[in-house]
Structures are given as C-alpha cells and as structure tokens.
C-alpha cells in the first residue's frame, strides 16, 4: 500500500535561514507527488506538484522540491525562510492511476524565529 512519511514533526528555523522539509514515499511506480501548506485557520494550499519530467519542481512562495527516485524522496526546500512561512506542511502522494485520492503524511509544523 502507498504511504508517505514526514520524519520531522516540528522544525524551528531563524528567519532568513534555509529550509528543507523531508518527505519519503512508498509506491511501486512513478508517483504523483504534492506539497500542501496549511496556515492557521486556512485550508490546505498547494505549493507544488510533480507528475513527470524535470525532477526539480518550482512552486509558489519561493519553494521548490526535488524528486529522487533512488531515495523515494520528495523534499521541500526554500533558500531563505520568511516569518510568514510559519505553518504546517503536508506531503501527499496520488495513489494510483485509477483513483484521484491523495495519501498524506502526518505533516511538519514549521516555526520561524525573527
């Protein structure tokens, strides 16, 4: 069965520092991969997605993610974090070609110090 693991429950960084949020997935074929962000009181907003092609994907708000098949990873990165990036981040995988449900990780809560 497909699964997603986000090993870091909580990460704290200083404003201006670089950020990497980890995501590992379990799936036999090439997955559809997503990163969503949830700010307090808001819905889940799509940051970026990977379906195929270039393994480095650019998203909104200056985020990028790299698909590494050999490591079954899809880590989210940002070179310089802003205080407004404090939120909960969810990695998700689209299960198979016959369904459009998303399978989510447990999320990583990002805290940003000034």
């Amino acid at each position, binding site marked *: 069965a497909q699964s997603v693991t986000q090993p870091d429950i909580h990460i704290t960084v200083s404003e201006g520092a670089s950020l990497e949020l980890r995501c590992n997935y379990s799936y036999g074929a090439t997955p559809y991969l997503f990163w969503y962000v949830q700010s307090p009181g808001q819905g889940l907003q799509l940051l970026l997605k990977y379906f195929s092609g270039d393994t480095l994907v650019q998203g909104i708000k200056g985020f990028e993610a790299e698909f590494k098949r050999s490591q079954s990873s899809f880590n989210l990165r940002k070179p310089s974090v802003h205080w407004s990036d404090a939120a909960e981040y969810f990695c998700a995988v689209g299960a198979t070609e016959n369904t459009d449900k*998303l399978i989510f990780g*447990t999320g990583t809560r990002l805290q940003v110090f000034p």
Partner: protein
Amino acid sequence: EPEVTQTPSHQVTQMGQEVILRCVPISNHLYFYWYRQILGQKVEFLVSFYNNEISEKSEIFDDQFSVERPDGSNFTLKIRSTKLEDSAMYFCASSEFGFHNEQFFGPGTRLTVL
C-alpha cells in the same frame, strides 16, 4: 480568488446525534472530496464524488456516513450517529478536472463528539 468554504468552523455534538457538515466547492469544479484528520494523525481520504455519485470511498466511510449534493452549490457530509472516534477536522476539497489535478481545500470543520 475563488475558494472552497465550509460551515460550521466548529461543531460540538453529543454521541449518537446526527451531524451535517457543509461545503461550498468552487463553482466550476466537478469533482468533490471529503478528508478528515484526527488530532495528531494523518489527513485521511474519506470519499470522492463525481456526477452525482460516489466514485470512491475508503474503509472509514461506512454506512454511518453519506454525502450529497442537494443543489448546484452545496456538498454535504452527514454522519448519522456520531461516535467519540468521529472527532476530527473534516476537510472538503474540489477539483475542476479530477485525477491528480489540483484539489482545492476548504479551511475545515472541527467536529467534537462528547
């Protein structure tokens, strides 16, 4: 910018009572979903809905759950007889094209069953 809305933001109910969670998807979207997140756990898929019928449901979505699109704008999730373990955040999502195209999420309804 169009968005998915959900009401109420917080619902408190007694065990055994029926609840209806309401969602207004983005107006031109055709695919609708419910997910839930029990506190501290993963966001889990419940059901997908297209063309006025359920296209897929998870094992969580048992006979106590039902979904309906009663008019052209609302999408509802009904829990007939709530249990303590139904306490969770329930997210509605919609998608224009389905199948791993972006799902737009609402802010969620926090359901507390006492």
